[in-house]
């Protein structure tokens, strides 16, 4: 555990430097294209090398963080945030590649790639944010490692249960934030639908992976033993609240939409519904569980 946290610390610092360097290079390239200057080939290769290295770091990071999931620690929220942002940032790295190719093509024909640049710089902000979260997690975990080693090992695990719900809350918040970003900024219509669909799938991935991981840890137990009695009660209460929230909330949203009070793209209903339900369910379960 100690070695892997130290390794994560190194990775996070490296990623922060690479993301900052990549942003600086991209800003320089954007400025050059706007003033119709040509971009030296080595700069394009440097950006490509930086992106490939960052992809590799993301893959290694998610494996290392995944190996910490069963360990009880005080950094559960930072760890859950690291998982969600790692997957989201990885997805945006792939988006960066597509957008940069489009920018390359469009700059040859028409010098108007503002929408693409907005997506690219949003991606850079997310990469930097992920590296900072990873840095905070590894520093905090390093500090509290000695304390956590002292206590007795839990037989009935609550760490994965809490982690899954924290991942759910963070996934939903990032998902809703990303939908708002797509609505607020003038993203080219051709990319908006695809980005929305892919982002919903990709953002839900960490939640589903953590649920699958949780099921794997429980596969030796009978379903009735998967939760302890308080966890059962918290989940039941959360489910009841979700039933009310989803029926009333989506009813109001649908009413406003059908009366023309709000103009919402119909394809957004499902992602908004998914993220809202996930946010409410995981949030309420966590609140009830922690309230004691």
């Amino acid at each position, binding site marked *: 555990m100690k070695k892997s946290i130290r390794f994560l610390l190194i990775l996070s610092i490296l990623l922060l430097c690479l993301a900052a360097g990549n942003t600086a290079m991209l800003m320089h390239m954007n400025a050059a294209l706007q003033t119709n200057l040509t971009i030296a080939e080595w700069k394009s290769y440097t950006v490509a090398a930086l992106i490939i290295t960052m992809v590799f770091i993301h893959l290694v990071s998610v494996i290392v963080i995944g190996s910490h999931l069963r360990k009880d620690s005080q950094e559960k929220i930072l760890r859950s945030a690291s998982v969600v942002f790692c997957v989201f940032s990885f997805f945006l790295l792939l988006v960066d590649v597509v957008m940069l190719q489009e920018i390359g093509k469009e700059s040859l024909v028409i010098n108007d790639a503002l929408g693409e640049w907005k997506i690219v710089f949003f991606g850079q902000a997310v990469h930097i944010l992920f590296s900072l979260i990873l840095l905070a997690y590894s520093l905090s975990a390093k500090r509290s490692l000695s304390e956590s080693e002292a206590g*007795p090992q839990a*037989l*009935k*695990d*609550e760490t994965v249960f809490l982690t899954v719900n924290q991942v759910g809350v963070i996934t939903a918040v990032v998902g809703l934030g990303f939908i708002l970003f797509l609505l607020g900024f003038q993203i080219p219509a051709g990319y908006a639908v695809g980005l929305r669909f892919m982002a919903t799938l990709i953002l839900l991935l960490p939640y589903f992976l953590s649920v699958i991981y949780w099921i794997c840890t429980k596969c030796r137990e009978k379903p009735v033993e998967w939760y302890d009695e*308080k966890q059962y009660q918290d989940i039941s209460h959360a489910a009841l609240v979700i039933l009310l929230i989803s029926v009333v909330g989506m009813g109001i949203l649908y009413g406003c939409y059908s009366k023309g009070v709000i103009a919402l793209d119909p394809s957004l209903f499902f992602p908004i519904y998914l993220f809202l339900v996930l946010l409410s369910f995981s949030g309420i379960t966590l609140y009830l569980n922690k309230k*004691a």
Partner: protein
Amino acid sequence: MKLENNLRKYRFEHDEMTQQELANAVGVTRLTIHSVETGKFVPSTLLALKIARFFGKRVEDIFYINDEEDVIGGKE
């Protein structure tokens, strides 16, 4: 009417055992023991019996009903 308990007292009499150790002994999570101890969660009959058996006591020695709170709160 509120269910209260002497769980903390018995834990400390039992070699100052931690909530985690008791949770492991009766097969629940530490948070459940913590919520039972603070009166925020009413345990099932099965859990109450398991806890009583672990300490070698009767359930009534560990859990009891506090009627006074209702009189003060005017709910009776």
